[in-house]
């Protein structure tokens, strides 16, 4: 008899631990896509405004001379140009006027400035400053200024070696180099006027932000929140380059320049030495809170507004407490640096929600009352409208899908975190929206007084995060987290949204496959310009978002479009194309997306970007024929 028929089952199936192995060997090629939103309801989604009625802006804006002297165009940071040659009917005939290659292949985030018929472009590292003569055909180069920053500074640039541009004031172009020098260059001759070192790369500091010049003071801040630096904002004397004052983000009150004038609206921001008490001992010294974003200035109130970046490290368990004054907004007196008020968007930030985004200073009717407000689309997914005299939050509305918080308590000003989404050491927490780059990162939005809308280029990403015990080793990254990002609900990565700041609702939105990592520009011709990571430079209708014109540039666009009136009286639109930055690092740095954590997890969301675009660095200027 076949005595042990069953033996065949027995022996064969005792190898079962190997059976899945067999299957996976045979089928290794097949795999499913990761999607965190299979069935789970999102907690917060933006509200769409169905019956939008245009309500033109009632307030006053700065006068416009057709030049572009600072990246945000004006002190209120509107990025609105009153030039109206281009409009919905003729924009489709927009043609390339001239181009200029920067010779760099990293992320070009700067805004081309136009002053006195000269265009100034700052490149990414090595941070050359080019002056182009607009009066001559083809805009030949007038001069180039090469600051020769130390190459080693590239090692402390968290998210590509970008530079967000220069500012013009009083005959000088001011900008920062990656190795922490602020330079003033004579706008006419290209000679260096002064050069001041304000930080140290060995501590992980670097500088990427565009300075703002207020009342002769050059305001600059450092970068390096992922390197355990101590963030600050410094005012340099525009003439000499001497440091006038320096306001640290964390630390004792005297370092933060908190004095008797400091009157935050909410009680949790009041108290002595909160910059020390809300940190574990000595952690504030390496706690981030850098100032690498945008500064706005209200000449009337004589206050500057800027956001502070995330606390470090990302592993929040390593820094219990509210971690003041990171991930919040400061109002300061530009003359002395004294803090006037502070508000923290993300106390004890858990997700790298820097608060460095632009603050657009407007006078808006809120609840029937005309208020001096600032509008701040934050990384945490809310557009905050705040009273800029007091720091009171008037409204905070959702502009992108959010799972990490339940809303903002307008009474206490507190962000309501979702407990289940709190990253834990040693455990992957899934479906965190917005992801680390936030619902919107640095890419600045534009405000049109004609439509009364805010045009927000932003991200639509979510992530999984696992915290790890971080090690602080000066000059090396201090993060303590594994992150993997992916497209948000709906399976796309970016959006360009028109936002009604009064109603707090979305008016229209254009989806994009990738995060919209470029700045926005809106003109009096009711056209909005922005670029996409795959290299399209687009003009859309400011009322409806309809695509009117687009141009495919040589590389992905992460720059800030500007417009100006040329010497020939025509309206020009300029944009730097050159993929890079955090989002484009996968291309600029040649990263390998098989590692989902590459570029702090961003590479995973950008896996297919290399199919769409390649490295480059080119200025494109357009005009009507």
């Amino acid at each position: 008899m076949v005595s042990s028929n069953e033996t065949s089952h027995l022996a064969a199936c005792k190898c079962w631990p190997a059976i899945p192995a067999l299957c996976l060997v045979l089928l290794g090629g097949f795999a499913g896509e990761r999607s965190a939103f299979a069935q789970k309801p999102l907690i917060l989604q933006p509200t769409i405004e169905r019956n939008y009625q245009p309500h033109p802006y009632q307030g006053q804006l700065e006068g416009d001379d057709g030049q572009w002297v600072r990246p945000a165009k004006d002190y209120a940071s509107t990025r609105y140009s009153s030039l109206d040659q281009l409009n919905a009917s003729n924009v489709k005939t927009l043609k390339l006027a001239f181009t200029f290659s920067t010779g760099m292949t990293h992320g070009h985030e700067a805004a081309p400035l136009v002053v006195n018929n000269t265009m100034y472009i700052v490149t990414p590292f090595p941070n050359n400053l080019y002056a182009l003569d607009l009066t001559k055909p083809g805009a030949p180069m007038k001069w180039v200024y090469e600051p020769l920053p130390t190459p080693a500074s590239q090692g402390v640039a968290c998210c590509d070696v970008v530079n967000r541009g220069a500012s013009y004031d009083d005959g000088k172009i001011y900008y920062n180099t990656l190795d922490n020098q602020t330079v003033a260059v004579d706008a006419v001759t290209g000679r260096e006027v002064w050069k001041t070192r304000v930080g140290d790369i060995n501590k992980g500091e670097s500088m990427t932000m565009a300075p703002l010049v207020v009342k002769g003071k050059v305001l600059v801040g450092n970068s390096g929140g992922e390197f355990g630096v101590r963030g600050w904002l410094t005012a340099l004397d525009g003439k000499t380059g001497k440091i006038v004052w320096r306001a640290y983000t964390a630390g004792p009150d005297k370092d933060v320049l908190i004095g008797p004038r400091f009157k935050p609206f909410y009680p949790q921001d009041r108290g002595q030495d909160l910059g020390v008490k809300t940190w574990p001992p000595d952690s504030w010294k390496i706690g981030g809170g850098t100032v690498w974003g945008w500064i706005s200035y209200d000449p009337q109130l004589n206050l500057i507004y800027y956001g502070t970046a995330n606390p470090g490290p990302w592993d929040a368990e390593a820094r219990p407490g509210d971690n003041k004054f990171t991930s919040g907004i400061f109002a300061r007196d530009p003359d002395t640096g004294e803090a006037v008020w502070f508000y923290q968007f993300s106390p004890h930030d858990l997700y790298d929600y820097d608060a460095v985004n632009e603050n657009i200073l407007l006078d808006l009717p809120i609840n029937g009352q005309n208020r001096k407000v600032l509008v701040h689309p934050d990384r945490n997914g809310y557009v905050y409208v705040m009273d800029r005299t007091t720091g009171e939050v008037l409204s905070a509305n959702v502009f992108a899908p959010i799972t990490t918080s339940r809303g903002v308590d307008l009474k206490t000003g507190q962000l309501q975190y979702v407990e289940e989404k709190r990253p834990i050491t040693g455990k992957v927490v899934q479906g965190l929206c917005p992801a680390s780059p936030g619902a919107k990162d640095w890419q600045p939005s534009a405000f049109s007084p004609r439509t009364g809308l805010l045009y927000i280029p932003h991200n639509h990403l979510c992530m999984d995060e696992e915290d790890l015990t971080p090690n602080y080793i000066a000059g090396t990254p201090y993060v303590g987290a594994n992150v993997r990002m992916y497209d948000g609900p709906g399976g796309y990565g970016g959006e360009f949204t028109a936002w009604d700041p009064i109603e707090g609702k979305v008016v229209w939105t254009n989806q994009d496959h990738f995060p919209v990592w470029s700045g926005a520009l809106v003109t009096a011709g009711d056209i909005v310009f922005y670029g996409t990571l795959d290299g399209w430079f687009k003009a859309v209708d400011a009322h409806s978002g309809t695509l009117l014109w687009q141009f495919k540039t040589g590389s992905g666009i992460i720059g800030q479009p500007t417009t100006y009136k040329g010497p020939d009286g025509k309206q020009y639109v300029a944009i730097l194309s050159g993929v890079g930055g955090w989002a484009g690092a996968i291309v600029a740095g040649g990263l390998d997306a098989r590692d989902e954590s590459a570029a702090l997890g961003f590479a995973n969301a950008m896996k297919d970007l290399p199919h769409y675009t390649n490295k480059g660095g080119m200025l494109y200027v357009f005009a009507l024929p």
Partner: protein
Amino acid sequence: MNSGFTFVPLRFLAQAMTLDPGHHHVLHPAAPQAGHIEWLYWITFWILFAVFVLMIVAFASAAAKSGVIADHPLPILEKDEEGDRRASWGVASAVGITVITLFLILVLSVVTGKRVEGLTSKNPVTIQITGHQWWWEISYPNSQADQTITTANEIHVPINTPVVVLTNSMDVIHSFWAPSITGKRDLLPGYSSAFWFEIDKAGIYHGQCAEFCGLQHAHMGFSIVAEPVDQFQAWQQQQLKPAREPSSTDAARGREVFLTHACLMCHTIRGTDAGSRFGPDLTHVASRNMIAAETLPNTAGALAGWIVDPQRIKPGTEMSPNPLAADDLQALVVYLQSLH
């Protein structure tokens, strides 16, 4: 603790075998919980000892009663219904007694378990203990963040105050055990659990990792320093300060050595640039009695030996050898010893 259960010679014998000089002994409790357990231990011990004696007597007397020496198989006994019935009664009653005894032990065990586990008072001191291969990270979380203390391997607690211990592990499973204080608790990665203890006698109590955790499982000790509340608070205040500035040129040089060699890649000294959390926090290293997870005394010689060749003392430890020049080493040791 167990005076109620004294059978003098046996007790003497038992105690003689458990004579112990140190504070690392299940039967030398220094805390109420270990005391309860010791009580349970002894009462169970004596019950079981009685059972043991009875059983041995039973076997011996059975052998004595019916034992015969014979080379060849003896004939089979006839059935003895009456004898069997009596023997069956004996078996049944023995089983009955067993059941009752076991039930008694169960009740005692559960009652003791309740006494050991139940937290008796409010306002405890909370300690977070994180296991690492092969040392203990100790932190004292505080709702006011700047009052958070981080130290290693040496746990200071106030006496007569409940201490709540939160556990966690960064790598493999460890087990926290101070025999004189209370029973052990595993530190499991992916789980955070809590237990508590309270010490009523001031002193230094030794503890050790009790779950096999790799190469240096043997050298993963810790100590609990139980002290009066005021001393404990003084210790706390001291620990909160940043590291002392070097007071001598030697110490200053030592700090330089620390900050320019491998030390700063793994250790923190608050107040300096060294901020790595991979190894123990050394901000107040000189305030501890032992180094290397209770392996060596905190003396200049041991410290120097440990820094130069830790792999001789703990093969496989994560601390790397540091072949420093003699005067650098000297300076470094001076500096570390100044960090009170």
